[in-house]
């Protein structure tokens, strides 16, 4: 095993970071968030970066989950609006064999999975199929407000199917919701006899793939947000004085910073390790993804509160940027399943009640030296 970015990956991350530093700043963010319209950013991002992390034959520009995780990390690090990108990236596996549609989707015509973002995608509640089109409501759909098409899990005659539905139909009603975190959007979506087209894929396996991707990419998002909060808190501690000294010289403040740093570097280690595991379909990839999501996003909310304490009252205001990342990290904890839900997933896979059974060798070798 080698934990190391390739030269291409390093170059990609650097170029993306450069581009983002020009495209996003606090003022722009607040403009997009106040107006509730981040389409300007979403469009220019799609124009310049669409399809990185998606193989060329599938309609992307090449690369895999490591590249997608780098994208998620760096988007979060500047708090860039990313609902459309994330929703589309997750939906892509459902469009296998349709490279033109993928290209269109990543190019600025977002596609979203019609599943509640409060749960693991593989546990999505399917709509009932029928002759009169699709009918039903799904609350809290990621990018439900901006998606032009939905990938919809449907219970068909032979079991679970995936359909694609145009969001522009009259029979599709979308009610945007108001999140504390403005960098992502959710909407409640109701279909009332919507026309749909069935996708020729193994629905169960696609939803499992989407779940693993969601786990890794939300964890990567927390990595970026946590790094940003660490940077803000450490910078602040070096310029804010109290009792005649910089607050960064107090041991309690140092230890708080160190605890965030431990979380950040553990997250960095695990996000990319897990991305590689999922991409190369390791035997334990599903557990790796679940563990990364549960651990990193839970620790991310602890880091957010620690960063807030390090800032004192100023971090608690609307006008300070800390709140942007604070809310971003908090949303990630529950987005696509709480740590508890993912841990239950792990517990199931570990077959904890399998008394007298031969132990499945679910676990890799140890690295202690």
């Amino acid at each position, binding site marked *: 095993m080698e934990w190391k970015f390739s030269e291409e990956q390093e170059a990609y991350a650097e170029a993306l970071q450069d581009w983002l530093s020009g495209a996003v700043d606090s003022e722009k963010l607040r403009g997009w968030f106040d107006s509730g319209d981040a389409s300007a950013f979403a469009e220019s991002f799609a124009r310049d970066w669409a399809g990185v992390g998606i193989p060329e034959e599938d309609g992307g520009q090449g690369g895999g989950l490591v590249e997608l995780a780098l994208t998620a990390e760096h988007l979060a690090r500047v708090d860039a609006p990313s609902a459309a990108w994330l929703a589309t990236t997750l939906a892509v596996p459902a469009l296998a064999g349709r490279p033109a549609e993928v290209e269109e989707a990543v190019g600025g015509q977002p596609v979203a999975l019609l599943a509640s973002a409060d749960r693991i995608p593989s546990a999505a509640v399917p709509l009932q199929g029928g002759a009169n089109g699709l009918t039903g409501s799904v609350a809290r759909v990621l990018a439900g407000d901006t998606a032009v098409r939905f990938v919809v899990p449907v219970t068909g005659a032979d079991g679970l199917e995936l359909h694609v539905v145009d969001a522009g139909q009259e029979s599709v009603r979308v009610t945007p919701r108001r999140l504390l975190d403005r960098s992502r959007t959710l909407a409640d979506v109701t279909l009332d006899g919507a026309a749909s087209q069935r996708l020729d894929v193994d629905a169960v396996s696609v939803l499992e793939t989407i779940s693993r991707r969601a786990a890794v990419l939300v964890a990567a998002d927390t990595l970026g947000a946590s790094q940003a909060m660490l940077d803000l808190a450490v910078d602040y501690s*070096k310029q804010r004085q109290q009792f005649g000294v910089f607050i960064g010289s107090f041991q309690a403040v140092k230890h708080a910073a160190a605890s965030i740093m*431990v979380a950040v570097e*553990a*997250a960095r280690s695990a996000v990319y390790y897990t991305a*590689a595991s999922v991409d190369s379909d390791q035997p334990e990839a599903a557990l790796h993804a679940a*563990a990364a999501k549960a651990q990193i996003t839970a620790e991310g909310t602890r880091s957010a509160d620690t960063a807030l304490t390090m800032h004192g009252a100023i971090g608690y205001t609307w006008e300070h940027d800390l709140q942007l990342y604070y809310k971003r990290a908090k949303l990630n904890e529950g987005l696509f399943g709480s740590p508890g839900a993912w841990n*239950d997933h792990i517990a199931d896979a570990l077959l904890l009640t399998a008394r007298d059974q031969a*132990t499945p060798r679910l676990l890799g070798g140890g*690295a202690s030296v």
Partner: protein
Amino acid sequence: MDFSERPDEAQFRTEVRAWLSETLPTLQWPEPPELEDKVPFWRPYQTALFEAGYAGLTWPQEYGGQGLDERMSSIFSEESAHAGAPERLNTIGEDFAGPTIAHFGTAEQKEKYLRRILTGEDIWCQLFSEPESGSDLASLRTKAVKVDGGWRITGQKIWTSRAQLAAHAILLARTGGGERHRGITYFLLPMDSEGVTVRPLEHMLGEAEFNEVFLDEVFLPDSAVVGEVDGGWKVTMGTLAFERVAIATGRVNTVKEIRNLVDDVRSRTDADGNPLGADPHVRRSVADLWGRVHLHQAISQRVISGATGGEPPGEVTSIGKLFFCPLVEDLADFGLSLEPLNDQFDLEDEVAAVGTGGLAAAEHEAGPQDQGHRHWLRLANQARGTAIAGGSTYIQRNIVAERILGMPKK
């Protein structure tokens, strides 16, 4: 990011696995639980390692080592853990003293000491810490006075593991007038020298895990000095650097421990006879620990990859211990918690000892080192000791904040 193994790695793994499965059954199992009794069990294994070319994997070949990189070394560790190989008794010799002598020592020192470490003939210990200088190593007081042809050394050392087994020690003493880091010299000390007294120091479970060592006018010749007189701090930093992979990844194989824990949970029922693994609290706890082990594994692989690539130690190296220590503590505490009050019986309680859950079966079939309750109890205790040893977590956090994050010292 690459999960695949290089061809030489895959081949090495296959060879090691075969060798272990051939060699381990020839040992005089079971492995004794008490440290003193372990030596005659361990020594033939170390000799076998040496003869098979598996001793000193990362040592330079010219000193009897194998000249391999950290990835190969970690493959060997993985396979050893998986196969249930004996505990390594001479980590100070192999990981600290040996590489230090190879790098800083004289030709005579190399000739005299290095091979005997690898063959298992000499166990080493480390005489650094003192009662009044725990976290603050540079404040050590042991004094070396120049005499004709050498030095007379007087002082007290503490927290010395394996002192009662060791043939030699690496030793720090104050030789110069310099303050703190200056004026310290690095010596090699035969433990049978006149004036050396070893007194066992029991930890809170009542076992003599470490020792106090009293040095009363102990004579060492000039040839016992490593590096420059008064230049011992530089050598010490070198010693610690050789160990940075082990320190950053931790010496406990957490993958193996979580596997023990899963086996243990599977084999147990609660007071009402229901499978323990069906208890929702147990399920969440095991899953959470499994997840933390996954993160630890990722951190370790990153450390190993960095060290293999010859990169300078970065952020991840400095956080390893902070992540690792509480994890091992929680693994062991959870292992103890599976039976009510089970954590409360001491090592000599026979009833608790046989209530091993699934653990014994999960160990190497040739003989478990340690059974369920005692295993978790020793591990829980050891984890707390590790958090304290080599600078408490308080100091480690200071270091992260000041050296990596650049926060002001004062």
